[in-house]
């Protein structure tokens, strides 16, 4: 039996890899992928706690998170398409219209 702490540690590392990706990458598509990675890392901790406590409420949370992530990906990529159509780029450094 793998201790719950190991799952939590793996989840934390994956989440922070996602954070580092969001902060450092300039390609908006890859930034969105890093957000997906962060959501997945959180799902892993939900399931680790669900298993440790023997409570299936965590599974329902993960189910909802997966649905929200799918919706987020669809809307985010649609926004990206609209932005690309207007600006011909997905480099987030050049998308500064709404910056102060």
């Amino acid at each position, binding site marked *: 039996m793998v201790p719950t702490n190991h799952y939590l540690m793996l989840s934390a590392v*994956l989440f922070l890899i996602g954070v580092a990706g969001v902060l450092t990458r300039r390609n908006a598509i890859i930034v969105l992928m890093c957000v997906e990675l962060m959501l997945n890392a959180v799902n892993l901790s939900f399931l680790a706690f669900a298993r440790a406590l023997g409570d299936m409420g965590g599974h329902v949370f993960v189910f909802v998170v997966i649905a929200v992530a799918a919706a987020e990906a669809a809307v985010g990529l649609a926004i990206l398409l609209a932005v690309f159509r207007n600006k011909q780029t997905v480099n987030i450094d050049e998308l500064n219209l709404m910056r102060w």
Partner: protein
Amino acid sequence: MEQAVFYVFAAIALGSSLAMVVQRNPVAAAMNLVLTMFSLAALFVLLQAHFLAVIQLLVYAGAVMVLFLFVIMFLNLTEDQMMPGRRSILHVAGVALAIYALFQLRALIQRTPPVSAKPVDAAFGTTKAIGRLLFSDYLLPFEITSVLILAAIVGAVVLAKRRLD
């Protein structure tokens, strides 16, 4: 045995997610993310979450990643758009912040008492058990999720349309 499986898939997940973050080519990054999703699905099976492991493969590795690949190929980025200028200060700051947060989290996780996982009954994590929960205790969140997905569908169509009539 279970430990070995855990460490193998944890290593695959870590390696492929790191590869995704440092990868310059978006298609290669997407493929690495698919590999991460696959190994996470294997870990879900280890955690007795059989239904969610399958959902993870179908929804994430299937639908969402296909959507990502579709958009990557639809945009058809040229070389200089694919490799935008790198700003080293932000890189260092981002990675340093992540490492700092990692140490904070490690201290926090080590302070939590190691929960001794009890053996669960065979129904744990099956489709039937989740379905029962979704349609009884969690009926309202389930219905709200369906409304959210409907809104996302409409929103995606409207946003991606060439122009509104």
